[in-house]
Structure formats: C-alpha cells, structure tokens
C-alpha cells in the first residue's frame, strides 16, 4: 500500500519557503507543502503510524497531515515515475528506525492558490518536463519503485549490409554511430567470425567512440590534444607529476603532497535541466578528483556558467529559459558543493546571447593527494572489479553520445545527482587508498560503466557481469545497465586478497559495494549478463566456469575496439588584418552616470546573491577569496592552505570572456592566457609554479568553426612553450551548435582557462585590496585599448569595429619577470578586467573601504574605460614609485585617501549611492 504524509510549514517557515516561488509564479496567495509517499507491505498499526508522523514533524515549525489527497486549487510537482528519488534511502531508513517497514519512498511538492492560472504557471515556470510531472489530482500510485524493463539483446548481422543499411543501424534507437564507425563494427564481426553482434556492443561502441569519450572531433582534426600535450611536455617543468593521462592533472605541491586539477563541462544536460545538469557537473568533477591516482581529496571547487540574456527565452520552447537556467544553476551548485563539503573557490555567471540555446556549464576542482599515490594506475589480472556508490538506473542514457552531437538531445539524457552518495564514498576512498586496498580506480560519468570499466580494463582485459549491478528499477536491458550515467558511482580494482578489508571500510561508511567482475589479462573487453554467477563465485575465481554466454553482451579484443576517425584537413583561420577601432566620443552622460552604467553591467555587478549561497569556508583552510571586504567584492584569485598546520598555499584563478572570442578567438586566447599568468604572478606565484587546465567549447556547424579551433590550439601550444607554463589537464566540448526552432545557434569558438599555483608560505600572497592611505595606484602592463568586446561598448550602447589588440608575448614575458621582481614595491594589486580601469578602481575602493582620488591629469572618463586585460592597478608606496621596473610600463593613475570607499575625479564623487546600490543589486534584480 501507499501511505502519504504531507508536511505543512507553519507561517514563520512558510514565508521563507515561499519567497522565491511567489516571485516566480506572481501569486500572492500561493501556499506550498511537501508530500512524502511511502510504499509499505501493509497498513501500519496506529502507533507505528504515529511514530512515523512524529518523526517527520518538527512541531514548532510544521504540521504533518496523514492521507491528505490533492484537493481543488492545488497542483503537485513530482519526479517522473521512472525516477528514483534521492531521498529514498534516508526515508526508508527513518521508517525502519521508528518501526515502519517501508520498501520505497518519494517526495513531491504541492502548490495551492485560488488563481485559475495556478496549473498553467507552475507548468510554464517551475516544472521541468524532462524530469518532473504535474499532477492535477492525486496521482494514485500503486508502487513507488519503478518496474523498469528487460528484453533480450537485439542482434544485428552487419556482414552483408551496404552503407545505407549500416547507417540506418548506426542511427537506430538514438545511437549516433557514424558510417565509418559502423564499418569498424562490421570489421569486428568479420574478424571474430560471429553470426551477429548484439545491441550491447553497438551501444558500447557508440559511447566508446563518441566525442565525449574519445575526442573524435579533436582526433579528426589532426590530434589537437597531442599538440597541447607535446607543448606542455616541452616546458620540461619539474612540477608536472601527471599530465593528460589520468582523471585530473597532478602538480607537485610541498612536503610529499601534490595537487590534482580538473575542470569539465555539462553543457548538453544543463540545456535540458539546468538543475540536474549543473548538479552533476559539480558531482562529476569532484569524482574526477577522487578518481585521480589512487584517490585525491577535493579541497575546493570552482564554477562558471554562461547562459543567454535574462530577457530572452530559450530558442526551443521545451528548454528552460536563461533565467531559469541561472536560478537552477545557483540552486544546484549550492546543493552539491555545500553538501559535499568543499569550499567554493570562484564562481561567476555570464549573460551572453550566444549561450541561449546551450549554456556553458563548467565545473572545476582542485584536490590533494600524496605524490607517491599519484599517477595513473593499472589493474592486474585477477583484481576484482568493485562497483561502489549509487544505484544504476535509466537516467542519462545516451548522455555521452548525445552531448557529442549537440543537435539531438533526448530527455533521458539528464542524469539525476545525489550528493549524499558521494559524500559517503569520499572518505571511504581515502581510507581504501591508505589501507592499500586499491590497485586502480576511476569514476563513472559519461557513458557509465562502459567508459569506466572499458577504459580501466584496456589493454589487459576485463570481464563484467551486468546481472550483478544493483539497479534502481526491478530490471533493465543489458545495454542500458552498461551505458547508464546514473551518478555517484565509482569502479575500483581491488586485489583479491584485500577484498574483505575493502568491504569492511566501505561498509563502515555506509557505501554500497558489489563485486561485478574481474580483470582478466586476456586482452578482451567482455560484458555478459549472467544472473547465475554470484559475487562469491567471482571472488573465488570461479567465474571462468560460470562466465555466461557472450551472446548476452560481447567479448572483443581491445585491439579491435581501437578506432581512428577519418581525418579532416582544416587550415587555421586568422582574423583579417586591420586597425583597432577608435573610441567614440562619449558626451551623452556624466562621469558618474557612466560609472553607474559600468557597475550595473552583469559582468561587473556584484553576484553576491549567488556567491552568498555557496559555502566558502568549509574545511577551514580558505584564507583569501572568493570575496573580500564588507561588500563582498569578488577577488581575482582564491588562496587556501590545505595542509593543516603549514603555510603551504594553493592559489587559483580563471580567465574567460566570450565577447572577445566572438571577435577573434586566437587573440582572445592569447589575452586570456596572458591575463591569467599576470594574475597569478601578481598574486606572488612564481611563473614556473603555475599550471593550467583548458576547457574548449566550440561550435561544430559553423563554417569556420574547426578552422578557429585549430588556430586556437596552435596559439595555446605556442604560448605554453613560450612561457614554460604547462597545461596538465583539459577537456574539449565540440558540440556548441544547436539547430533550434529559430535556426542554428552557436557558441563562439572559445577556451576557458584555469590556473593553479603554489606558494611556500601564505605570507607571500598579495591581495587585491588597497591597504594604506597615501599610497599611489599605478597602472602596469600592456595596453589593450580596443573598445571591441568591452563592457563600455555594451553598457553605453556603441558599436566598435571587431578588432582586438595583439599583445606581444615576448614583451609580456619581460613584464612577468619584472612583476615577479617588484617585491615590496607592490603592496597589493587588482587585475584590470571587464569595465576597464574605471571598474577596477571602483571595485578596489568598495572592497578596501578606502577613497580613491584619480590623478588630476586624467584626461577624462573615456580613457578609464579601456580594458587593459593583461595589466593591473597596483598599490605602491610613493617613496618606491621610482623603483618600479620600466618593463612594467608604470603609469600612476590615482592616490589612496582615508575611507570610506569612494572614487573622486577633480573633486567630483563618481561612486554615488545610486552607483553603489546598482552594483550591489542589479545582477539579482535581472533574474527576478
């Protein structure tokens, strides 16, 4: 039977819970409550029911009602019936503790209002149809655990099919196998002399050879990754511990420890459900860190999201709007990062119309690992294949291959994240590592078991029995089990003699664990569905006799699974030569009005509404960033000291500006690269102590898209070699074009760069905030004075010719050397970014709570709008002005006075209350 209990908040709490929904639905009389459903074998006794009611109720703030059906003027939002609720396990546990024998549970939310538009508004503004359903009447559940489905693997004989037949099979059922890949599959069938191939193999190949797993676009363009790898290797930097070979790059830290760094994107899923897409991007990248070497511990997380303008709708009406994506992003990032217990290092959201069809959803993390445990590890024959974490369901099917195509995205491609599962195995993995229970491990993300197991078993060989995989549903087809992207799962290679110790550790942490196969040494990737083979059989080594019928899956030598995509010859694209455009004469507004316009631009305005919801202090080692000052101004870098009791410091910064990539992707790449190095060197990090992570996000259906990509990779490779700063990790997403109802919408060819540096002592860290009245503020660094792509052009509404400044790398190397040698002459420094010198000075004044008096020789407000992105405004004691090296190109621009925070030009206050209020509130207001 199904039992329903509704938790009604009392007014004090209800007001808080209703704040956002009332805004979104524009219904003043809106009420809401949560409904819990429990599946029970029989009606519980009255006293047991009362215990459960009491256990769910916090009597001071809520009232529990038993068996309240959905009434008139009420609608209920619930997960689709095929989705298993994240709260299921905890709710079943709670029932057990109070003596109620529940077998499954789920949660829903009911909204009531007298408005006849209630259902329509909830459906249009709150409901995500890809994962949720709207009930206008009591749903009448008869069971809560999804039934699932099961069928025998489909069989295909490819041997005699022509290209048309092969292509049809390749596209059947949502697969994205290209004709060349179907040729490779036909070759496998012929080589192995098989009567047929199963859909299990076709699906496995589809994901294995997808862009997500194999980087086929990059490979087809001439091994672009190889170019970046070789450039990084050519730096000869001795801090590199592991580079492009593991789930994260590893960078030598201090005292026997190293740092793992990784960033990845969930653009496709976030376009369908921003909440779950962004939730799983954070979860996924944290799992990458956990799966590095023999297990690294995340010490921080960072995130960046670009979506369309808040005033826009999604081009496809089925997709969430940019505003919904923004709001759901904040909720998701908050829920995953905070629950996992990892401090937010940096977060930022950009509104740019090119991301209205498919957002840029990037998540990154830094982890800590003993150096001796770093480096990619390989299982040995006989090691047990242990699946840990969450259950496997039918969520995220075709996620890897669909996210690789960009134009097609079925709703099942969304994964459902559950942070609790991952928190549980986080500490368990570290304990397994330290107890020598691991030979290797990896996370399960895109393409699920197929990717994780298939890669870990390559080339030695692995045997997987999908019948042992614990499911969310009663049953699932083999290929779905293999490809499911259900989250919060990892695969371990455990030496057989350590399996009992491993199980004890996992059980201690409440981590579900199952032996699902073995590493074989036969060089084959084997997947079977053999219900008769038990975990004990595998542990005992008897699986050879109970191996199951390969026709339930496949058994293919790894060498036959190698695939090289057809090569595409593309020449690098370059922007047409031309002069950078001049600035128009800005006469329409006063300097104070101009500053207000700049400070209220979404790129400059405070994003405190979002950042205040992200835990920045958990783990207790953050000592700088991600905001500073009474007004919580975003800092240009983050710093933490993750080794307890030592001053050893990690510094992180990022760089991305889509407006520049729209104009000239190559020069934008250069400006971002240089600005990033400039930030960390200004922070006090030595250039050779900096490593980078790249995340390319490029269009696949634009005429010059691939040409720009090749040119950007070439540029980045040259810069890495010229500056000796290696990339240690990276990811490419080459599906940035979406065919929508309004036509093709593409993101610009772009690369997001993240940098991690190390400092031996946190006392060496420079901060952004000005410190001493009387000191002089000096602009340093090269000019990038083109108005193209600037906040000023957008905020003040003028057009600029699309030309970017070409900063000379050689000169910038001299600049960095001079900056590194400046020592105490530079007290603090704030890099110049969006909004130019003017925004930099204003934000510095706000963050420091000091007055800034602009140099009286300042010609006018206009020159302060220049975005000299590779430079900075630094604070210098007047007596040391002369000691600044010429290579810094120092130009005094202002002087610090006693506070409070203000910005004055010729005795006129520019930072008026309206400007300050606009800066503080504009961003949140844009999402209202």
């Amino acid at each position, binding site marked *: 039977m199904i039992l329903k209990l509704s938790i009604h908040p009392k007014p004090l709490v209800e007001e808080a*819970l209703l704040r956002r929904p009332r805004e979104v639905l524009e219904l003043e009389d809106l009420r809401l409550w949560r409904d819990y459903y429990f599946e029970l074998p029989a009606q519980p006794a009255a006293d047991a029911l009362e215990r459960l009611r009491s256990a769910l109720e916090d009597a001071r703030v809520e009232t529990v009602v038993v068996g309240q059906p959905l009434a008139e003027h009420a609608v209920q939002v619930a997960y689709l019936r095929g989705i298993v609720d994240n709260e299921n396990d905890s709710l079943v546990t709670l029932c057990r503790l109070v003596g109620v024998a529940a077998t499954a549970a789920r949660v829903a939310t009911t909204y009531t209002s007298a408005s006849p538009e209630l259902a329509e508004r909830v459906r249009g503004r709150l409901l995500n149809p890809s994962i949720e359903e709207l009930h206008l009447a009591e749903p009448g559940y008869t069971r809560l655990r999804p039934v699932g489905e099961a069928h025998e693997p489909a069989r295909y004989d490819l041997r005699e099919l022509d290209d048309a037949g092969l292509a049809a099979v390749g596209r059947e059922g949502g697969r994205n196998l290209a004709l060349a890949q179907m040729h490779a599959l036909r070759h496998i069938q012929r080589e192995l002399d098989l009567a047929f191939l199963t859909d299990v193999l076709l699906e496995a190949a589809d994901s294995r050879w997808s862009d997500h797993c194999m980087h086929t676009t990059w490979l087809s363009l001439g091994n672009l990754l190889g170019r970046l790898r070789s450039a990084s290797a050519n730096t000869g930097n001795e801090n590199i511990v592991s580079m492009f070979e593991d789930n994260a790059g590893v960078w030598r830290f201090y005292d026997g420890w190293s740092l793992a760094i990784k960033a990845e994107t969930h653009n496709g899923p976030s376009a369908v459900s921003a909440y779950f897409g962004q939730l799983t991007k954070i979860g996924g990248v944290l799992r990458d860190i956990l799966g590095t070497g023999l297990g690294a511990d995340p010490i921080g997380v960072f995130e960046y999201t670009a979506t369309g303008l808040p005033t826009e709708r999604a081009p496809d009406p089925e997709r969430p709007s940019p505003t919904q994506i923004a709001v759901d992003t904040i909720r998701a990032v908050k829920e995953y990062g905070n629950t996992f217990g990892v401090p937010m290092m940096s977060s930022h959201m950009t509104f740019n119309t090119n991301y209205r069809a498919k957002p840029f959803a990037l998540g990154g993390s830094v982890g800590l690992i003993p150096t001796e445990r770093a480096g990619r590890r390989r299982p040995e024959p006989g090691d047990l294949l242990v699946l840990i974490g969450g259950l496997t369901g039918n969520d995220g099917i075709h996620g890897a291959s669909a996210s690789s195509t960009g134009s097609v995205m079925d709703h099942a491609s969304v994964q459902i994240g559950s942070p609790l599962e991952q928190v549980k195995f986080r500490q368990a993995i570290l304990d397994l590592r330290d107890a020598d229970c691991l030979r290797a491990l990896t996370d399960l993300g895109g393409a699920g078991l197929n990717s994780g197991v298939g890669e870990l078993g390559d080339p030695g060989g692995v045997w997987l029995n999908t019948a042992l995989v614990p499911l969310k549903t009663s049953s699932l087809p083999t290929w779905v089990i293999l490809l499911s992207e259900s989250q919060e799962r990892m695969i371990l290679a455990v030496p057989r003699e350590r399996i009992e110790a491993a199980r004890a550790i996992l059980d201690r942490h409440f981590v579900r664990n199952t032996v699902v196969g073995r590493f074989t040494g036969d060089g084959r990737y084997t997947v079977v569905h053999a219900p008769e083979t038990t975990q004990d059989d595998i542990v005992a080594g008897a699986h050879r006799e109970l191996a199951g019928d390969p026709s339930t899956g496949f058994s293919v030598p790894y060498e036959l699974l190698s695939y090289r995509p057809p090569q595409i010859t593309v020449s690098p694209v370059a922007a047409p030569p031309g002069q950078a455009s001049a600035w128009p004469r800005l006469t329409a507004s006063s300097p104070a009005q101009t500053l207000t316009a700049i400070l209220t631009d979404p790129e400059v305005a405070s994003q405190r509404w979002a950042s205040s919801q992200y835990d920045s202090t958990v783990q207790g080692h953050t000592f700088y960033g991600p905001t500073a000052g009474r007004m919580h101004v975003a800092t240009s870098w983050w710093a933490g000291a993750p080794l307890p009791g030592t001053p050893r410091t990690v510094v992180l910064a990022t760089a991305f500006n889509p407006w520049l990539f729209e104009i000239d992707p190559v020069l934008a790449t250069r400006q971002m690269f240089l600005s990033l190095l400039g930030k960390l060197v200004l922070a006090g990090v030595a250039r050779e102590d900096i490593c980078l992570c790249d995340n390319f996000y490029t269009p696949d259906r634009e005429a010059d898209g691939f040409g720009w990509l090749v040119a950007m990779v070439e540029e980045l490779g040259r810069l890495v070699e010229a500056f000796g700063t290696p990339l240690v990790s990276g990811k490419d997403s080459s599906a940035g074009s979406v065919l929508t109802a309004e036509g093709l919408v593409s993101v610009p060819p772009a690369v997001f760069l993240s940098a991690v540096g190390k400092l031996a002592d946190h006392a060496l860290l420079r901060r952004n905030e000005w410190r001493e009245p009387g000191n002089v503020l000096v602009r340093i660094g090269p000019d990038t004075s083109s108005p193209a792509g600037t906040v000023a052009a957008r905020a003040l509404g003028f057009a600029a010719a699309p030309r970017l400044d070409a900063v000379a790398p050689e000169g910038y190397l001299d600049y960095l050397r001079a900056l590194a040698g400046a020592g105490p002459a530079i007290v603090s420094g704030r890099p110049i970014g969006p909004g130019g010198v003017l925004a930099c000075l204003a934000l510095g004044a706000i963050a420091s709570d000091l007055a800034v008096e602009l140099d009286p020789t300042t010609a006018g407000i206009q020159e302060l709008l220049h975005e000299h992105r590779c430079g900075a405004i630094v604070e210098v004691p007047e007596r040391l002005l002369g000691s600044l090296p010429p290579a810094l190109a120092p130009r005094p621009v202002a002087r610090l006075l006693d506070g409070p925070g203000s910005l004055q030009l010729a005795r006129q206050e520019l930072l008026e209350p309206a400007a300050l209020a606009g800066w503080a509130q504009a961003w949140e207001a844009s999402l209202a």
Partner: protein
Amino acid sequence: MSVRVNILYSPGTNCQHETAYAFRRVGAEPRILALSDLLAGRARLQDADIVCLPGGFAFGDHSGAGNVAAWYLRTQLQAQLQAIKAMPTICICNGFQIAARAGIFGAVSLATNGSGTFHNEPLQAHRVVQENQSFWLAGLRGETLRFPCAHGEGRFVFDDRSGWSPALLYPDGENPDGSSEGIAGVTTPDGLMLGLMNHPERAPHSPRVQELFANGVRAVR
C-alpha cells in the same frame, strides 16, 4: 593528562577533519567515530572526555536537517545519547541540528533561514553572552567573536525557555538567518553542552575563537 574527544561521523558529515584539527591545536586527542562503529558496538560516544557532533549534512538532511541521525540517537543509540547529556559536548551546525531534533536543548528548532536559502558569511559576528556561566565561554564573555556562518537551516525558534540558555547572540543588524532574539548559540542549563550553528573550527587563525575549544579541554583536564 590527555583529553580525549569523540567526534561523531555520520554519512553526510563533512566537517569532521577541521573539527578534529581545532581540538588538536588546543592539545586534545580527537578521534573520529563512525556511526556504523557505534551501531556495531565497536565504539561508544561516551568513551571520551568531550563529545562533538560536527557539521555537515547527515543523511543528506533528508526529512529535515539532522533528522535521520537524530532518530538513530533516539532509538538504536538511546543509551549513548543519555550518557553524553552528562558530558561536555559541543554541537556545531548540523551537529546542533541533530542535537535539537534529538531533544537535547528542549523545545527548540532550527528552521529554514528567513531568506529561504543557504547563507555564507566568513566573518559573522557573535556576541558572547555575559550572563552564561558555561565553561565553554570562560574568558570570552562580552566579547564579539567573528567566525564563519554557513547554513541554510539555522533559524533558532523556541516554544519556551526551559532546556537551554543563550550563549551567543548576533549583534543587531547582523542576524543572518532570522533567529529569534538573535540567538546564535545556546548551552544546556547546566552549561555542559554547547550548541551553535556557525563554525568556530573554521577559524584556525583566530586565537580568541579557538578559546571555545580550549575552554572545553581546560574544563576536563
């Protein structure tokens, strides 16, 4: 004499290491006890000089912040719950929520913040109540301590004043969650147990804040 501190680690707890470090810095010997160890009889919370329920999201805060962990204490670990009520105990953030749901501080609740969402403030101000004589607050009374606030359900509400005494207050205008009367932390009437939503363990470079932990250690040494 070494001072032993037992720190409860439930599935979803995520502040156990920095909390252990905070105790270690003031000379204690912290030990992290998994809930599974308690359930299996391999360890007991009360086998120490001080007990700590640290922060996190035990059982994902499903069915209410701290609720499932609290019901473990109220049912399968009832004897241990009774035992620690007679011991110096500090309950931080989720640990405070667990303690509240377990009835340690009487008829109080920690409800959803007035803003309706999580609030992060690295330098949250707390005024130490002058009148509270708990050893946890020794030498700190009347001071304003700044340490991180990071919670979504910390709004202190109460039915009556039995079972608790105010220990920390938010200064006027700096109440991050809408707590009644600005209450940021409480002790049991006997002063043995301290509960607070915010995180003194995350301020290792603030000697005054670390006095909260040192006070606990001094009291049992």
